[in-house]
């Protein structure tokens, strides 16, 4: 008798959507169970849109958005959010840039004011630009240059897999490009991409919908209308022969490898894409997963393993082209070729023999827990819904994800595994230069 499967629960977060006359799209999802709110503004511009010769610009610009705006001096944004008891941040992705706060709910109007003010216009000054170029360089040093495995694999694998500048370049940026950025570049970037028509505002948590709607109209209603720029097609052909690349990491004590295969378009072919999201977990989620059992426990050829969709690990926040990634850390003297051969073998086995009894159901139950846990925080909900609105016009998809993940079939997972052929694979290998 097949194993009984855990019932996959769903959430019922309410969703209100509307657009202002200036094109700003808004998503509200009220939840009055705790006196806190999440506010997210997402702009449809990311690393893939930055100009040639301006690597790292989308991220640098994210920093500039915190440096004052029409009615706010430098440092005021931070002080007003934190002085209201909240926290804030922003982040730059391949396909979008987000700005967000989570605060006690009595600060709703203040948060809306702050976001509207910088949507009208950040203060782009030479002094702030130079200061933030320095800060970003320190960020790159701490996250990439001064530590082992810095940028592996999110910065080091795309240039192996892709050929065009938008998909292949270093999204953190070269110091040369960062240093030569100008205030005029920033003003252009803002005018082009930070248009009200290119943005989504999401507010979640302890709000009254009518009151929040009125406040949003009050603060964002007179942001000048600018349409969204046309988004270029970033498509690239799939690989037909295997690609491999190797580099020495002077600080890394042990070898590592990451491989990626292209997957169906996450937006236009969601049904085709979802089985890959499930497959990544079947392969790598915990001690009971296929590749952990085989590579870590049985063969002892790797010491740590991860599998996920998209270079930043955000399966539902990314557009085409993207990939399924597997990354592994190896013991001293580990054999990367052997690890890749075993992965091929296990993928073959999965495609040919299928899954074991209960293997799929338990993986899906665990994925449901992860999805529910991520959206338990009001801010997690606001961010997710903002991106789902922006990329799909479907913020309520958030409620559906656990069920949709649960509906993926064994046949679909097998078929997905069968596409991960060596000739479609791009890999990057870290050679340990820091062994002592």
């Amino acid at each position, binding site marked *: 008798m097949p194993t009984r*499967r*855990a019932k996959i*629960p769903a959430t019922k977060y309410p969703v209100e959507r509307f657009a202002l006359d200036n094109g700003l799209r808004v998503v509200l999802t009220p*939840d009055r*169970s*705790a006196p*806190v709110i999440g506010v997210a503004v997402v702009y449809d511009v990311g690393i893939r849109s930055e100009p040639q010769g301006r690597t790292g610009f989308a991220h640098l610009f994210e920093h500039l958005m915190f440096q004052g705006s*029409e*009615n706010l001096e430098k*440092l005021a944004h931070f*002080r*007003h959010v*934190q*002085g*209201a*008891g*909240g*926290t*804030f941040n922003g982040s730059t992705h391949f396909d979008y840039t987000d700005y967000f706060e989570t*605060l*006690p*709910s*009595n*600060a*709703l109007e*203040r948060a*809306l004011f702050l976001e509207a003010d910088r949507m009208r216009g950040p203060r782009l000054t030479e002094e702030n630009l*130079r*200061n933030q170029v*320095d*800060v970003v360089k*320190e960020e790159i*040093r701490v996250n990439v*240059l*001064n*530590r*082992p*495995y810095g940028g592996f694999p999110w910065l080091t694998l795309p240039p192996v897999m892709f050929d065009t500048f938008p998909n292949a370049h270093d999204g953190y940026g070269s110091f040369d490009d960062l240093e030569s950025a100008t205030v005029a570049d920033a003003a252009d970037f803002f005018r082009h991409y930070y248009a009200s028509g290119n943005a989504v505002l999401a507010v979640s948590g302890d709000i009254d919908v009518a009151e929040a709607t009125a406040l949003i109209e009050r603060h964002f209603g007179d942001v000048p209308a600018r349409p969204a720029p046309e988004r270029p097609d970033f498509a690239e052909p799939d690989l037909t022969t295997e690609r491999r690349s190797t580099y020495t990491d*002077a600080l*890394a*004590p042990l070898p590592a490898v990451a491989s990626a295969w292209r997957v169906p378009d996450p937006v236009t072919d969601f049904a085709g894409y979802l089985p890959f999201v499930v497959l990544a977990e079947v392969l790598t*989620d*915990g001690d*009971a997963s296929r590749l952990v*059992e085989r590579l*870590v*426990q049985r063969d002892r050829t790797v010491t740590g393993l991860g599998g996920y969709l998209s270079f930043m690990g955000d399966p539902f926040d990314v557009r085409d082209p993207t990939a399924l990634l597997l990354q592994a*850390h190896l013991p001293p003297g580990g054999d990367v070729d052997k690890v890749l051969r075993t992965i091929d073998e296990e993928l073959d086995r999965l495609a040919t023999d299928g899954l074991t009894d209960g293997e799929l*159901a*338990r*993986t899906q*139950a*665990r994925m*449901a*827990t992860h999805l*529910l*846990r991520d*959206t*338990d925080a*009001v801010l997690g909900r606001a961010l997710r819904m903002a991106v789902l609105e922006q990329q799909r016009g479907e913020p309520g998809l958030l409620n559906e994800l656990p069920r949709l993940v649960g509906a993926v079939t064994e046949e679909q997972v097998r078929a997905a595994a069968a596409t991960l052929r060596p000739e479609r694979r791009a890999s990057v290998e870290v050679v340990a230069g820091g062994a002592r």
Partner: protein
Amino acid sequence: MTTTTVRPLPALGPNRRLTVPKQAERTLGNGLTVIAVRRPAVPLVELRLWMPFGRAHLARGAMLAQTVLAGTEAHSATEIAAELQKVGGGLSAGVDPDRLMLSGAGLVTGLDRMLELLVEVLTGASYPGDWVATERDRLVDRIQVAQSQPSHLARTALLTRVYGRHPYATQTPEPDQVRAVRPAALRRLHAERVHPAGAVLVLVGDVQPTRALDAAEAALAGWRGDGHVAELPPAPPLEPGPLLLVDRPGSVQSSLRLALPAVPRTHPDHAALQLANLLFGGYFSSRWVENIREDKGYTYGPHSVVEHSVAGSVLVAGAEVATEVTAPALLETSYELGRLATVPPKPDELEQARQYALGTLQLGMSTQAGLASLTSAYAGNGLRLDFLAEHAARLAAATVDDVAEVAARYLAPAKAVTVVLGDAARVADSLAALVPVRTEGAST
């Protein structure tokens, strides 16, 4: 200058009062305390089991955490993981000088099953030889990777410098010590130290608290054993002295770390010290961040925090700064500490920090995972959630004078223990222009 409408900053609405969620507590016959808290936002439950673990052998303790879930008489490690997965669950183990912690989360419908598997591990972990051997190698590799991370090396140097001969001084075992750990030693350590007396289980989520206590009692009442209890000696007072410069040739950044005295959560100075720490470097809108990041661009993420352990509390400030500005960054750090210790803060600056402290209490309680971790951390230090309300009242009552007084008492730069990890050849001379410096090689 363009002319734009001047828009006033909207005022805040009235503060919502901090309400502590519904909870229940029971101490079982075997000495285990169970605390259950209701937060039904999503159909999940969070689990934290805090077991006192002071003075445990460092390498064996680390290996026990690495392998406690590696199998029982009834189930292999793979089967345990699969059984937990079936109910959307997972467990992991971690260890520090105070405690061994088992934590996890799963679908609330799987609570009973998670508890069954938990007790199976607690009473029957078998430490199978082949699995232990694999995990031993993995842990050794992980330690080796950690030892190539500047943040780890700086922390290691700071702990040694701060704690001297106290058990807190060394928190990561050496690879050779790990290689020497055998399954028999793990079984012995488990029998000796993994027991219910003094342990606290926290369950938070979509549960009726009394029903969750019943479920925990049904599952865990049979967990027996009350071996050995080890009290930690109080942490020693900080002893300022020369700056310790740890050489890491070729570093493109220096890791700057300062330790300053602090007090436990229950100390009368705690709330005011928390506010003083925020003013100095404890949040983004602090003097230190505004100075060395937003004004001078020396660093990406400077931060200071009061760390509470069972045997003592300490304030730690850390920043990764460009090599060429290492000494200037230290100069600005001492300046900001000295200014806070000798000049009272402005009332509006204090209000801003106070609102942040109060607001983040609300935020920390607003998720199941946050509430579970907070409840567990408090319980490990003998406190309960109602302490939150008392602490909020103390934060609300602290005056400018209170904060000035604690800043002088705890944050004066003369009281700091300072460690810098970086390229000594490039930074030693300029640091020596500011303070006496003692240089040593990296410890690994």
